[in-house]
């Protein structure tokens, strides 16, 4: 049964409690479960990092002769990714209001920031001067940051699909579960990067 207020909101194309039958859309539950499994995956990678760091004798860090890690560049990349989480959320709030124009704008900006992050990370890799085979540090560094980068790329794929669908006008205030799901994933990737940055670059 719909109340009068809900029926009015429905006619106006607004999101109503009726659209959230028994809580959460299945797609969002699926995304949450997927993110939970991803947390476990990254948990394993972090465990590897800390284990390698604890059991390596001698100095921990890039191999002899290589450059130190570029904390300034990584800091800029962190700022870019954190900013992209905000722009993503602005897009979600826009489509919840039914503002498809703002959704397109914020999604495009978020995608641009994500691509910028990837470009910055590839540039960082090219300047490091050590490879994945250079010692334990090289291996865990590239594994952790590389898998995170792959996840950013996965998020960029999702954002590209959201942008393309938004440009076809497929989203509305009532019907935009894909936007919500991709934004959840994007926030997750952002949080993981903060952990990676803190662990590898700040903690050392």
């Amino acid at each position, binding site marked *: 049964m719909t109340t009068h207020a809900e029926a009015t909101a429905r006619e106006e194309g607004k999101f109503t409690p009726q659209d959230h039958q028994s809580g959460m859309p299945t797609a969002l539950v699926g995304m949450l479960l997927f993110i939970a499994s991803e947390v476990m995956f990254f948990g394993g990678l972090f465990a590897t990092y800390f284990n390698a760091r604890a059991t390596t004798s001698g100095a921990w860090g890039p191999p002899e002769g290589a450059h130190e890690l570029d904390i300034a560049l990584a800091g800029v990349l962190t700022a870019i990714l954190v900013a992209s989480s905000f722009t993503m959320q602005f897009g979600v709030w826009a489509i919840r209001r039914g503002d498809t124009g703002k959704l397109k704008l914020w999604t495009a900006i978020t995608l641009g920031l994500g*691509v910028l992050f990837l470009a910055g990370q*590839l540039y960082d890799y*090219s300047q490091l001067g050590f490879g994945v085979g250079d010692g334990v540090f090289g291996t865990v560094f590239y594994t952790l940051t590389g898998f995170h980068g792959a996840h950013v790329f996965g998020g*960029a*794929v999702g954002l590209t*699909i959201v942008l*393309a669908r938004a440009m*076809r006008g*497929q989203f509305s205030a009532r*019907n935009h579960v894909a936007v919500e799901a991709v934004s959840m994933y994007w926030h997750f990737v952002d949080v993981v990067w903060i952990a990676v940055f803190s662990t590898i670059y700040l903690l050392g």
Partner: protein
Amino acid sequence: MSDTAFGFLLIGVAMLVVLGVIFAVASRGSRGEVAPVHPPRGVHLPPPSFLPVVMSVGGVLLGAGLAFRGDGEVANPFLAVPGLIVLVLGIFAWVRAANHEWRETEHGPHDDGAAH
């Protein structure tokens, strides 16, 4: 440009190409809002139930009873017997719940007022 930098440049370009292809494919979708998928009339989802959890607890107890047994025993009775009882009761309760649900689905009231 070093070989390493060139390699990373290639990776970056490949990523952009992939994103472009995905954008092109996703843009071929229908114009306008896509209606959310709802189950058709007559389709009913089962209600939430604790029985799967109850039965898996029974199964774990039974399995543990078969695994952690003394020499010459078939199973550890303190684990296997409660496990078997819980498992069998769980099956009976689930069949009962399914029958009840079936009756309600077939003959109970419906929001749309149509008889199925």
